[in-house]
């Protein structure tokens, strides 16, 4: 039976818990930081000596923590790519640009427990010898930026930030930088460009990691809000202990945002892989199931960019049994453990941890049209396949929802979508805008074809003029 495991959200939404520093301190806040900066050097059996920061980096590596922003890349590995010998300053940026449709977990932390993230950030900075760091927060979180500025001021006043932190000789300054409504700023190199005061055009790769060349062409670490909170817990527990949470290669806890057609949309923190998609949707302690009389139609498992799962879809998964042997099992989509690896094995991804549930009242064509409009709006415009392709797909889908579709539109859409990703664009937005189209059109092809065919037939009978328009889904009350 899957359970919630509130580690990062431990105090969030608790009655009486406030985002101010006194409340955080009353609940053990900054105790981990105090321990971390006092870590003595450790001598290994081979005579090598590890400094405190080096030990921390090892703990994060041992924890197996994977980034919570979307890509699920190993945090320890990301840190290990940092060029520490360049002589240039190393920067750290907290990515608080939360903007993947369906995701609303970082907002809870930023607004309700900002010091937890700041403590995690200070620890991450200390571990990586960073002296200047930024929180890149999305522009719409104006209130959040104020909360963070206040929190940073209070942390400075208590000497958790600033010069000679807690007397350990380490200096760190953190500033809040506000975005201005562009989704592409979530892409780490786009974010860096934006922080440099430019348009958020993602940078060409290689170098693949800003850890080599990032902000001001210096080594830079970009970590998500939730990832930095996890760092605090790793520093508190130790990497090995943290790795006991969750499942192998999918360690720790993760906050899942559930929205769409469920009775109890919300954010739920679970051990990674300990709950299945079905449990997260249907269990009374999580999503609470679908509305009365409705059946499941599809699930978008990891933010709107992830490939859709159709109800009833089955996947073959390799599983390691207690005897250590690997066996192949066929599982229903709902029985997939909600972790990084299982969802990749099933051809999608857990992305930013956002599940959007669609019931049988949903017009799948209208859903994809809605999503495509988002991508057409948010493409930064730098690469032609993405800029033109995303708009083109949105236009075709728009005509399909306005009764002006064509029978061949399904294949037409698939062809456009197939020609955007795969190295034709500078960043993964090309993939992000094509994956929904590719998966929706492939898995619900009959609906797209039928819609186009019906529109054509209508035009043949009535002359020109659109066929009837349709609702996106049954109204929330319906």
């Amino acid at each position, binding site marked *: 039976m899957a359970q919630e495991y509130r580690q990062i959200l431990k105090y969030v939404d608790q009655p009486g818990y406030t985002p101010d520093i006194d409340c955080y301190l009353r609940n053990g806040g900054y105790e981990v930081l105090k321990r971390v900066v006092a870590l003595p050097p450790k001598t290994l059996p081979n005579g090598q000596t590890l400094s405190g920061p080096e030990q921390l980096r090892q703990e994060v590596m041992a924890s197996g923590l994977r980034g919570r922003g979307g890509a699920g890349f190993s945090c320890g590995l990301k840190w290990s790519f940092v060029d520490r010998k360049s002589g240039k300053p190393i920067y750290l940026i907290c990515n608080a640009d939360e903007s993947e449709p369906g995701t*609303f977990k970082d907002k809870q932390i930023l607004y309700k427990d900002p010091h937890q993230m700041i403590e995690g950030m200070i620890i991450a900075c200390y571990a990586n010898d960073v002296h*200047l760091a930024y929180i890149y927060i999305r522009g719409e979180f104006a209130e959040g930026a104020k909360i963070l500025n206040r929190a940073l001021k209070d942390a400075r006043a208590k000497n958790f930030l600033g010069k000679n932190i807690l007397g350990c000789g380490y200096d760190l300054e953190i500033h809040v930088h*506000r*975005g201005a409504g562009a989704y592409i700023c979530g892409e780490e190199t786009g974010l860096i460009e934006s922080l*440099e005061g430019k348009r958020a055009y993602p940078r060409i790769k290689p170098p693949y990691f800003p850890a080599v060349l990032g902000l001001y062409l210096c080594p830079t670490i970009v970590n998500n809000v939730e990832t930095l909170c996890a760092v605090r817990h790793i520093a508190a527990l130790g990497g090995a202990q943290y790795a006991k949470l969750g499942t192998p290669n999918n360690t720790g806890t993760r906050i899942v945002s559930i929205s769409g057609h469920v009775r109890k949309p919300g954010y739920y923190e679970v051990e990674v892989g300990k709950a299945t998609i079905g449990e997260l949707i249907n269990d009374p302690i999580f999503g609470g199931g679908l509305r009365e009389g409705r059946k499941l139609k599809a699930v978008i498992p990891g933010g709107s960019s992830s490939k859709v799962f159709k109800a009833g879809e089955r996947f073959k998964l390799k599983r390691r049994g207690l005897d250590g042997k690997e066996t192949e099992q066929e599982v229903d989509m709902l029985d997939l453990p909600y972790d990084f690896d299982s969802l990749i094995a099933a051809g999608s991804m857990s992305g930013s941890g956002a599940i959007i549930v669609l019931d049988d009242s949903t017009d799948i064509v209208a859903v994809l049209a809605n*999503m495509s409009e988002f991508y057409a709006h948010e493409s930064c415009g730098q690469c032609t396949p993405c800029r033109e392709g995303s708009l083109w797909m949105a236009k075709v889908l728009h005509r399909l929802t306005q009764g002006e579709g064509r029978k061949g539109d399904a294949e037409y859409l698939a062809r456009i979508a197939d020609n955007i990703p795969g190295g034709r664009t500078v960043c993964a937005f090309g993939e992000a805008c094509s994956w929904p189209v590719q998966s929706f059109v492939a898995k619900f092809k009959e609906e797209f074809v039928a819609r186009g065919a019906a529109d054509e037939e209508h035009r043949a009978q009535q002359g020109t003029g659109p066929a009837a328009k349709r609702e996106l889904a049954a109204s929330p009350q319906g």
Partner: protein
Amino acid sequence: MSEIHSMEPIPNPLREQPDFAVPPDIAAEIDELITHYPKKRSASLMLLHAVQERFGYVSRQAVEWIAAKLELQPINVYELVTFYPMFHRAPLGKYHFKICRTLSCALGGSYKLHEHFCTKLGLDPHAHGAQTTKDGKFTVEFVECLAACGTAPVMMCNDAFHEDVSEQRADEILGGCK
């Protein structure tokens, strides 16, 4: 060598604000913001926010002032104003309603909510982009995901989030705008 003729200046697409002057409190805030970055140019988004918060939009004079302040060319600032959706080139209404259009909110009824506001305020629910009422009091805009998908439909009135917004709640929000 052919003679080079002077061309007609390209009309500046930014609004004029001849009386633009940065009040001392904003100037002090801006000076402080610039110190946050090792390179001045980095402060441009923060400066645009600071100026827009005070004047409600970004004018030609504002762009030129920010550029001078950061030792940039005006185009370096202007290209930000046209790229980032949150910056406006004309004043908006006193109350700016941003209604989330993206999927989870759409499933939760945001199209109806948007239409409700437009109908109440005499605006076109099918028009593209932000629309402002003639009296300059309200602006209604459909925006992309506001990161509060669990409480759809979601909207903002200026900087304040409103979640689970029913039509009744929408009317209360409207009623609260004096």
